[in-house]
C-alpha cells in the first residue's frame, strides 16, 4: 500500500497496464514529453518511449479517429482529451463510430479503448475548463461511462476499463486529482464496471452522487446527521450502464431520493435516475425525488462555488426530502 493521490493512482494504473500489455498505447496533446497538463502521464514516455506515449497534433478528431483505428487494429489505445470541454471535435468518432462498431458490424469489429477525460469544475476554469458532458455519452448506446471519486477506485476502474471489450469514457474529476491521498495497493486489482458503492449507510434518504460531488454529498450527510437524519450515500462510480439495482434497493429502503451532479440539470443523469426509480420503485417513494445539480447556465468563473451543487445546497435538499 502506498498513499496516492488520484493523479498518482491513475499514473500507476497506466504504468502497470502498459508493462503488462504491450497493446496499450497512450496518445493525446502534451501527454508525452510534458506528461500531461495535469501530469497524469508523467514519466510514462520516458519508460515506454515515443511510440507508446504519443504527443499528437492539436486535433481531438485526429486523436479519436486514430484511436478507433488502433483499436480496430488490435491495440488498446488510451486517448486523452485534455479537458472534457474540448471533446466535441471528437464527438463524431465517439457517437457515430466507436459506440456503434460492434453493433453495426454484427460483432465482427470491436473498439476497445479508454478515453481519459479530465472533467468538471472546482479549479476556477470557467466555461471552457469545467464542463461535465457525461450525459451526452450516456445517451449514446454502446459507450460505457465511468467517473471515480477517489484514488483507489480510479486505479481499479481504469484497469477494468482498459481491459473492457467496449469503448469507455473515463471521466477524471479534476477537483479530486490532488485533493486527497489514500492507501492504494501497488499490485494489480480491478473495480467492477457497473457496480455502484454504498459509501455510507442510512435509512432516511438515499443520496446518489459521483466524482467530485461525492464528497459534498457525504459532507451534507454528515451535517444532517446532527439533525437525526441518516443518509445513505451511493457513489455511482460507473455512470452507464447504470447499477440501478443498488439505487433502487436503497430507495426501497429509504423511500426518498436525492441525486447530485455538477452537470447541468436539463437532460442530465439526475433526470434519468429519477425516472428509473419512478419506474422501479414508485410505490416506495415517500417524497418527491430531488435533483441537486449544476444550474442550466454555462459554467461560470467567479461564481463557480455558487454554480456547483456543493454541500450547502445538498443539505437543505436532504432535510426537505427527509421531512417531506
Amino acid at each position, binding site marked *: 500500500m502506498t498513499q496516492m493521490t488520484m493523479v498518482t493512482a491513475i499514473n500507476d494504473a497506466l504504468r502497470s497496464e502498459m508493462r503488462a500489455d504491450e497493446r496499450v*498505447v497512450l496518445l493525446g496533446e502534451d501527454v508525452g514529453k510534458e506528461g500531461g497538463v495535469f501530469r497524469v502521464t508523467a514519466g510514462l514516455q520516458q519508460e515506454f518511449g515515443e*511510440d*507508446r506515449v*504519443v504527443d*499528437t*497534433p492539436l*486535433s481531438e*478528431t*485526429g486523436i*479519436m*479517429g*486514430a*484511436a*478507433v*483505428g*488502433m*483499436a*480496430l*487494429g*488490435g*491495440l488498446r*489505445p488510451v486517448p486523452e482529451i485534455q479537458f472534457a470541454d474540448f471533446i466535441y*471535435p471528437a464527438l*463524431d*468518432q465517439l457517437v*457515430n*463510430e466507436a459506440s*456503434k*462498431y*460492434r*453493433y*453495426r*458490424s*454484427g*460483432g*465482427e*469489429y*470491436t473498439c476497445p479503448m479508454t478515453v481519459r477525460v479530465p472533467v468538471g469544475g472546482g479549479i476556477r476554469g470557467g466555461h471552457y475548463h469545467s464542463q461535465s458532458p457525461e450525459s451526452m455519452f450516456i445517451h449514446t*448506446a*454502446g459507450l*460505457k461511462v465511468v467517473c471515480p471519486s477517489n484514488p483507489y477506485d480510479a486505479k481499479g476502474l481504469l484497469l477494468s476499463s482498459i481491459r*473492457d*471489450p*467496449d469503448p469507455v469514457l473515463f471521466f477524471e474529476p479534476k477537483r479530486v486529482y490532488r485533493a486527497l491521498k489514500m492507501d492504494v495497493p501497488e499490485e494489480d486489482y480491478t473495480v467492477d464496471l*457497473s457496480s455502484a458503492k454504498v459509501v455510507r449507510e442510512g435509512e432516511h434518504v438515499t443520496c446518489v452522487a459521483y466524482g467530485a460531488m461525492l464528497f459534498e454529498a457525504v459532507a451534507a450527510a454528515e451535517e444532517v446527521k446532527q439533525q437525526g437524519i441518516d443518509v445513505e450515500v451511493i457513489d455511482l462510480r460507473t455512470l452507464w*450502464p*447504470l447499477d*440501478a*439495482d443498488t439505487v433502487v434497493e436503497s430507495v426501497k429502503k429509504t423511500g426518498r431520493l436525492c441525486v447530485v451532479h455538477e452537470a447541468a440539470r436539463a437532460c442530465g443523469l439526475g433526470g434519468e435516475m429519477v425516472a428509473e426509480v419512478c419506474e422501479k420503485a414508485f410505490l416506495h417513494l415517500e417524497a418527491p425525488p430531488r435533483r441537486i445539480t449544476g444550474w442550466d447556465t454555462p459554467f461560470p468563473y467567479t461564481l463557480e462555488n455558487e454554480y456547483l451543487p456543493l454541500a450547502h445546497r445538498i443539505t437543505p435538499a436532504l432535510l426537505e426530502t427527509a421531512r417531506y
Partner: protein
Amino acid sequence: MEIQQSYPPSALPWGGDQEVFAVLDNEGHASASKDPRLPLALVKRIYETMLRGRIIDERLMKLQRQGRIGFHVGAEGEEAAIVASAAAMEPQDWLAPCYREVAAALYRGLPLQTYIDNMYGNADDTCLGRQMPDHVTARDQRYVSVTAPIGTQITQAVGLAWASKLKREDVVSAAYFGDGATSSNDFHAAMNFAGVFKTPCLFLLRNNGWAISVPADRQTASRTYADKGIAYGVPAVRCDGNDALAVYATVSAARARAAAGEGPTLIELVTYRLGPHTTSDDPTVYRDKAEVEEHAKADPIVRLRKYLEHQGAWTTEDEQRFTAEAQAELKGCIDKAENTPEPSIASMFEDVYATMPAHLAEQQRQCVEGPRAKKKH
C-alpha cells in the same frame, strides 16, 4: 514506378504537376513507356470484378425501383478506381471504405450472398439488418465496416496503419473516400497525423467530380485535390481513375513506399460518377446530360476490355459467358435473400456491448414480449 516527395509539385514522377498519370487511352491502347505489363491473369481478374460490379449495380438499381430493396449506392464508372486499387494492395492490408467500394471486397473474396443479404438486411446479413444496404462489413476481407458519416474512416485508416507500424507487421492500410470528403474534419486530421507519424497508409481519393450536387469548384479552391497533400507534407499524385492499369501501377508503388517505412501517399484517382449519387438522388436537377455523356466515353470497363481484347485475352464469347454466369449467380443470391426472414427482434438488443447489460436485457424482454407493429417492416 517510384513516388517521390511531391513537393514542389513539379517533381512528380510523371512530369508536370498537373499531369494525370494514365496508361490506357479510351481505345484500350497502353502507352509503351508506362504500361506496368501486369500478368494477364491478374488483369483479367480485375476486369471480371469490375464487370461483375457493374452487372450487380444495374440489377440492384432495378430492384430498388421495384421496391424490393430500400436503397442502393452504385459505382458506375468508378470500377477501375475501386477494383484495381484493391488488387494492388496485399491481402493482409486493411481497406477502410467509403460506401461505394463493395467491389473491392468482392475482389478479395467477399461471398456475393453475404453482400446481397446485406442489401436485404435479413437474418443472414452479417450485421443483422442493423445498417442500411451497402453498409457492408467484411472482416475476413479485412474490409472495415462501412459507415455513412463522411470522412470518419480516413482517420481510422491512419490508426489501423499506426497499429501495424507499432506491431511491426507488413500491413498497409488504405482509406477510400470521395472528393467531397476532402472537406471533412477527418481528412484534415488524418492527413496531418499520417504526415507527422509517417504511418503506412494510402489515401485513395476517388475524385468523381461530384459530392451529390456539389462540383469541384464549390468544394475547394485548390488547383487540384492532389495539391492538398502539400499542406501535410504527404506526397500526392494524380492518376487516371478510369484506367485500371494506371491505378494499379500507382497504388502498388505507393503501397511499396508505405511498406518500406516511407510513409503515406495521397492518390487522387480522377474518375467520374456516371450514375446518380444513390437511388435517392436525381442528378438531372443539377448536372448536364452532355457532361455525363462526355465522361461515359472514358468508361473504365470498356477501356480495360479493349486492352484485354488487344492482348487476345478476352473475346465477345468470354464477355457473354461471364455476364450470363454473373447474372445467374446474382439471381440465385437474390432469390435466397428474399426468402430469408428478417433478423429476430431479440437480435436488435445484441452487440450493443460484449455482454448485455441489465437495462438492455429488460428492454429486450419488453420488446420481444410486447405487441408487434402493424406496419410491415
